[in-house]
């Protein structure tokens, strides 16, 4: 009972919020967030790179294959973002699985508690 109360106060709130999702929805929701974060990071790093190499870029701008440069940048973006999202998907899938386990353990505990109180013939007021 103490463990159940502790769970209710600590992980319970977060798990309860997460348990409202289906697994696919939960993971997809976080993967979309990860895509947004990865995109922002990629853009920021690109800006930093351009700023730090601005003089070199301006010198060679007419000799640079812009299409090739952009395509390689897009490829890099896809690889990095894809890898990050895969990582995020695994992490959130594991989290959802663990959360489900905790919730089911909690529900089992609640059921046992109810059986105990029923067998002792206690009302809710007495038990509370």
């Amino acid at each position, binding site marked *: 009972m103490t463990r159940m109360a502790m769970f209710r106060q600590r992980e319970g709130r977060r798990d309860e919020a997460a348990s409202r999702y289906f697994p696919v929805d939960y993971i997809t929701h976080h993967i979309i*967030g*990860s895509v947004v*974060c*990865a995109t*922002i*990071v990629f853009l*920021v*790093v690109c800006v*930093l790179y351009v*700023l*730090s*190499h*601005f*003089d070199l870029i301006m010198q060679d701008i007419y000799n640079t294959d812009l299409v090739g440069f952009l395509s390689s940048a897009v490829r890099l973006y896809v690889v990095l973002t894809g890898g*990050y999202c895969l990582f*995020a998907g695994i*992490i959130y899938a594991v989290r959802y699985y663990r959360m489900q386990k905790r919730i089911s353990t909690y529900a089992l505990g609640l059921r046992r508690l109810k059986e105990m109180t029923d067998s002792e013939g206690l009302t809710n007021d007495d038990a509370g």
Partner: protein
Amino acid sequence: MTTLVEIKQLIKSIYVRYELWITPLWKFLLSFLSLSLINSHVGYLSAIKPTPIVLMCALLCSFMPTGFMVFISSFFILGHFYAVSIETLGVTLVLFLLMFLLYFRFGPGDTVVLMLMPMLFLFKIPYLMPLALGLVASPVSVAAMSCGTVIYYLLSYVQTNATTMGASSVAVGEDTEIVVQLRSFLTGFMMNRGMWVTVAAFAAVLIVVYLIRRLPVDHAWKAAILVGAVLNLILLMVGDFMYDTRFSFVGVVAGTLISALLCFILEFFFFQLDYSRTERVQFEDDEYFYYVKAVPKVTLAEPERRVKKINRAHNAAKPVHHTSSAQSGRRMPEPEDEEDEMLRERVPSRTASRPMGAADRTRSVAGRTAAGRAPVRTAGATVRQPGSATRSVSGAAARPAAHRPAPAASTRSIPRTQAASTDEMPDRVLRVNKDINK
């Protein structure tokens, strides 16, 4: 060893009892230490350097979630770097943004690791962190530890090069110069081989320690600490040999030894098992067979509190005996109500530690006036319960000890002339003693 276990249990009980105050206290100390170290090492912005500001920020952190400590520390670092140069601020801001977006979405609970890591570097024992995290955390903590390492090297780099970085920006102030500054800062910081060797070595140590301490073998934690310490030494020395990172050999060895010792203390607090009482059991339920190895933790049984009861009588006709159960050879009666419970809790701390002598018995009846215990309150209690016999007792209590007749040494009970002649006597005596004990 028993004493150490007792001390450990005492510390745990104190922490559990005063957790409400201890948690803000450690948050305050950690924030104060962190901000003070930032100010002392990269304190270029004088506006946020005074101690009162640091104290106020630390006080704020003590009542906020741990993530707020990271926010305040980041704010201090960015402020100081702004005073150095705008390029330094830009790069640091991007670095913090990367850390926040990429990592702290997953592991917001490891903020303390991020705060502690640069501190441990300054205390010359950063090797403690991978060993300790391998013991008590999971491999996910590698990210927080690596971020902390990078932040330390960033602070160190800026501290070393602040003069050149700030001087050229202020003196020239041209766009091309800013670009050059930005590039040199990025190159100098990111090409720091020592940083990457340290990050890689610490990550490997943490994972190896974690894997070993999870093994179902005896003394897994001790083995994990030893293997982790040796691996740490080897990796850093090999890294130094390969990439010329200029680690101090003596510093690495001494720091690793100290870290290993601290980890053994950690083990004492978190994983002290009695392997001599290991049990192997098998059982089954509807779905599984279980083969279980159970190793009990080393704990001490709670010391039994012996209560010597005084001033207790079941009826007024009998005298009130002031003797312990051991002295009289009788078993002490069980408490009958809450007042008795309170008395049982309070009395032992003052009287039960030694056999009660005749003078003690008299003092306990007379309100312990001679020992300097609030005679006024005793007398007040008596006024509320008027009675001739009781008045004589309280009168003795109210008088100074020097003016009281000396009690007989052989007295083991209150004479009936001093005790109440009605059934109220036990309650009255209890009430008087409760007042005294307050």
